[in-house]
């Protein structure tokens, strides 16, 4: 997708892909042929610039024909660079401007609570969007209202738009921030399926508290070696040589 569209935002899609696979294939209660079933778990993909990870996983899970992936960021295609609600079945919300996802997820979780529904709401956040005040406003709300049907997963690849988070706007002590907002937090290796599945099977981490998973990840992992953990992984699309190497490595597996 990145190569065909020569699109940016490949690194952040790669850093969250294991999380997305684990969620859609093992954790979320979803119904690919009835994507709006009221009892479904909701996933709010707030780091919508990395939408290609969401699209690829939704297609693989059977929400839509994988051929649609070819239209990613292409003129007249169905899949915009930032995911919009119902662009294809399974995309729950429109996002793209950072810091909008968690508030919407809070609304869905709050409604579930008042209406005594037992669906859960997952919000996938980037580390960069934890710079946004609105993310922390929503975190306050969720803690205040004890939304233990809400789970935030931060793809903590430690690289934002123009540099490392520790240099641009350090989030540390990150877990402590969430804890002090009355969330329960766990830190995991976001590329390790065993850890991801074990952690996400323990939700909520604490009754009466929203849960946050801080997933330590590496931006661009699995893509071209020269962009791994580099700012360039946000911007540079893969070259044809890099695609060939990637395909060769994947077929080796």
């Amino acid at each position, binding site marked *: 997708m990145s190569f065909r569209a020569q699109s940016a935002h490949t690194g952040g899609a790669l850093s969250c892909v294991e999380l997305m696979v684990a969620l859609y294939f093992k954790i979320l209660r979803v119904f690919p042929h009835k994507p709006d079933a009221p009892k479904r778990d*909701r996933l709010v993909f707030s780091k919508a610039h990395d939408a290609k990870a969401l699209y690829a996983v939704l297609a693989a899970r059977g929400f839509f024909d994988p051929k649609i992936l070819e239209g990613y960021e292409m003129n007249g295609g169905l899949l915009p660079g930032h995911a*919009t*609600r119902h662009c294809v079945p399974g995309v*729950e*919300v*429109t*996002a*793209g*401007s950072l*810091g*909008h996802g*968690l*508030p*919407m*997820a*809070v*609304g*869905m*979780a*709050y*409604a*579930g609570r*008042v*209406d005594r529904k037992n669906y859960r709401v997952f919000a996938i956040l980037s580390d960069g969007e934890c710079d946004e*005040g*609105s993310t922390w*406003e*929503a975190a*306050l*709300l969720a803690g*205040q209202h004890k939304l233990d049907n809400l789970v935030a997963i931060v793809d903590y690849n430690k690289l934002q738009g123009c540099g490392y988070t520790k240099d641009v706007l350090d989030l540390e002590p990150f877990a402590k921030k969430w804890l002090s907002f009355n969330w329960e937090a766990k830190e995991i290796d976001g590329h390790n399926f065993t850890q991801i599945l074990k952690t996400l099977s323990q939700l909520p981490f604490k009754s009466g508290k929203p849960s946050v998973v801080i997933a330590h990840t590496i931006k661009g992992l699995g893509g071209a070696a020269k962009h791994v953990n580099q700012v360039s992984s946000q911007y540079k699309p893969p070259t044809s040589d890099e695609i060939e190497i990637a395909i060769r490595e994947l077929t080796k597996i």
Partner: protein
Amino acid sequence: MRYAFIRELFAFAKRDKRIFLVAGDLGYSVFEEFAKQYPRQYLNAGVLEQALTGMAAGLALTGKIPIIYSIVPFVTMRNFEQIRNDICYQNLNVKIVGVGAGFAYGNYARTHHGLEDIGVLRTLPNLTILCPGDPLEVALATKAALRHPGPVYLRLGKAGEPNVHQSSPRFKIGRGIVIKKGRDVTIIATSTFLNRGFEVMRKLQEQGLNTGLVSMPTIKPLDTRLIKELASKSKAIYTLEEHSIIGGLGSAVAEVLAESGDQVKFKRLGVPDKFTIVMGRQEYMRRANKLETNQIVSTILRHLKQKNS
């Protein structure tokens, strides 16, 4: 106006459990009874307009009809991008209610004045903008807003505005209300200035001018058909609003007139494009901006005498 709104909201909330009021830590003396009677349909979210707007979108995505409420600038501009992306782009059934239109909070200074809301919100697709002009219109606009299946902005005054209509007028989203037809002058007024329009009409009539008054409680979608008709039947048109001269009713009407080719005499009356230096209560602030009834009458009389303007 606030009380007319809350009365209607009460009636709806009783019938329709999807109604969910989200306040931004405002509404003292207005929402207490609502909160008591409908605790599962009310939340004072706190002072976080961005998150509460996104939250309302999330509530709407589960089928609720959220109403968000705060003072005009905080519920229209602090959270403008959430209104744009979360509510309008997703075309969700959220109602945005701004209280304190114009200089209602005059002595609180410009931070609290509601003077740009219509201008900024008018740029958003899918959004209906309702600016009722008296308590009777507020009741009808609230009903219409809650029945309308999409995003609505409802702009409310706060000063205990009097009724201008003698009885409930016919109200439909997208339609202006002709209170009186005028051959010489037609005043198109909206929101907190409907009553001012009525006062100005009376004074112009005393001057022997055949003057009409039209209430324009919907700014978007605008009643273009009515505006064109007024332009063909009246010698001059004046728009009147307690809003910046840029972007509001006057601009919207000017856009219609400019493209219609009508040569009607026209002027926008509203708050000039500057921060008012002096400070005072609503009527004082209006006077400082030449929007007191007699000042408006003088402006119109002067304008009528000018040629080709």
